[in-house]
């Protein structure tokens, strides 16, 4: 996301779409279009609404999309966005999208080289430049820490703690709490390692899957910038879904202790509580 990112909101006329369109505009995001089939010609907070992605891309030169479309129709909305070669970034905010739908949309996005973030995520923010999604702008501070997280409010808690400690952020990405996500820790670690505006990295994980273990292996091979982590769910019981569809310990795999061990083994400092993250950064 940069100054040239021109965002359209798919599902702009819904309650969430309208509310967050206002917040994105207020933060300075170049939000140029909305899409709701059948509501073309209307305006939401001054933003023109189109009937299709193709029209929004053609008339308003949109090149990124933020999806608020309800779960049942979300895959269709994402596939429609993916049909437009101009669209290079898609943030899927929608929660409760079926896993099979998520797998298909992610596979198409990857085949086309489009950056898809989410589903079930708070979006992307570049403090001082703009935000796509639902993160609260009040917690941001411009700086050089890249933040990547599987959670929403826990990210806000940690970003807020950073800002209060006068540590600013370069880019904040919520990759989402679902089992299948378009952008994962490895993608973001690769991005932050290359990104000249990022000097250190904060990784916020939680129980379920082995994304943190894979991140640890990747950090060992490829990441030279300091990484601080926090992993939620140390006392979560096995076999229970803890709020996020992806947050579940299956058998022996997906525990917080396995993740913390893997991260510490490659030199990542792991905070024992969200508020300890700022102290551990260099």
């Amino acid at each position, binding site marked *: 996301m940069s100054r040239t990112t021109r965002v359209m909101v798919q599902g702009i006329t819904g309650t969430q779409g309208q509310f967050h369109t206002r917040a994105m505009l207020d933060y300075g995001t170049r939000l140029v279009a909305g899409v709701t089939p059948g509501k073309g010609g209307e305006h939401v907070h001054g933003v023109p609404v189109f009937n299709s992605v193709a029209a929004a891309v053609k008339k308003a030169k949109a090149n990124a999309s933020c999806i608020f479309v309800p779960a049942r129709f979300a895959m269709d909305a994402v596939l429609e966005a993916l049909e437009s070669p101009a669209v290079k970034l898609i943030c899927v905010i929608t929660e409760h999208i079926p896993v099979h739908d998520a797998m*298909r949309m992610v596979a198409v996005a990857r085949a086309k080289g489009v950056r898809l973030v989410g589903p079930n995520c708070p979006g992307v923010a570049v403090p001082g430049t703009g935000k796509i999604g639902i993160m609260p702008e009040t917690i941001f501070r411009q700086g050089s820490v890249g933040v990547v997280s599987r959670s929403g409010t826990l990210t806000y808690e940690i970003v807020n703690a950073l800002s209060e400690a006068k540590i600013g952020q370069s880019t904040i990405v919520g990759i989402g709490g679902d089992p299948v996500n378009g952008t994962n820790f490895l993608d973001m670690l690769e991005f932050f390692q290359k990104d000249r505006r990022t000097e250190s990295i904060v990784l916020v994980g939680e129980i379920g899957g082995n994304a943190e273990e894979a991140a640890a292996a990747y950090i060992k091979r490829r990441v030279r910038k300091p990484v601080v982590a926090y992993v939620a769910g140390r006392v979560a019981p096995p076999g229970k879904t803890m709020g996020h569809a992806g947050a579940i310990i299956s058998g022996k795999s997906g525990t917080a202790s396995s993740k913390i061990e893997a991260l510490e083994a490659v030199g990542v400092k792991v905070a024992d509580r969200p508020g300890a993250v700022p102290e551990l950064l260099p």
Partner: protein
Amino acid sequence: MNLLEYRGKEIFARYGLRVPRGKVVTSADELDGAPFPAVLKVQIGTGGRGKAGGVKFAETIDEARALVPQLMALTIKGFKVRKVLVAEKLDIAQEVYVGIVLDRLNRCPVLLATAMGGVEVEDVPPNKMFKAALDPLVGLRPYHLRDMSVFLGFPKDIASQIEGIVETLWKIYRELDGTLIEVNPTAITPKGEVYCGDAKVVIDNDALYRHPEFAQEPEDIPPLEARAKAEGIAFVQLDGDIGVIANGAGLTMATLDMLARFGGKPAIFLDLGGTDDPEKVKACFRLMNEARPSKIFLNIFGGITKCDTVALGVTKVIEEENIKIPLVARIKGRNEAEAREILAAAGIEAETSFEKAAEKVVAIKGV
């Protein structure tokens, strides 16, 4: 949603897979028509039932009459036995495992197969496990099946039966929005017939709207969790004494961890979600009140969520439901000052520090 074994086998049979004949009973009176000799298996929503004494053998109906009441009286890992599957006891020459599971990291389904069936799959050494990642846009292809058969090394007749089973499992996985299907054991009889000896089928909760036949399925979970699910609230019962309500799954988990850090034991995980709707807040507190923790910890970080609106809902529901459980609140973020005033007027002191509030709730005396 985890389907019980007998439901999984019903689906298998519907798709034409060969499953052992069987009958589901709730008492010894219902055994007529069940096949013997039989294996009797409790039907519960958790694994490890064999080790817990939930699987027995009966040569005759009389033996089964004595065993069924014993099995029905069991509670395994908190799951009360409500049904027993009485299934034809197979003569098994070899056990194979086949499964389709989700590879989260690679964002695709994976076909797994091993000739070391019957055991815990996690214990199978990697070089004994066949694995094929299935591209979601391509699916299962004949070459996957050929590779699998070469790996497993069975004679042609048995290999083609296993290939047929996997093809059907893939169809079920796709059509029913499965997130996991395992057949362990896939049983080969001395005559060379291949049966699906067990059925583990997990259906994606978020796709149930496409599968109304499961949407009404009573799931084997504790009653309060079932009600929470019906109301769309993320709620998990734990074995401590502090009820935790926070907004967002990650923050709620972090709150459990913070309590544990100060020696506290969480009783309830309740994720308020990204809402400040007073009605939702009230529904959450009503549920919490019924779960009877000895104290409650409310942890709100207001980003988009407005703290004062949450506080209004909280004070209202405490008054309406006459909730007597001591409450410690931590309120931070959007409109936190207003929220603190609202809570103070109701006699609740709110902290801003996560650590301090956690320490406080651990220290106070509960009911």
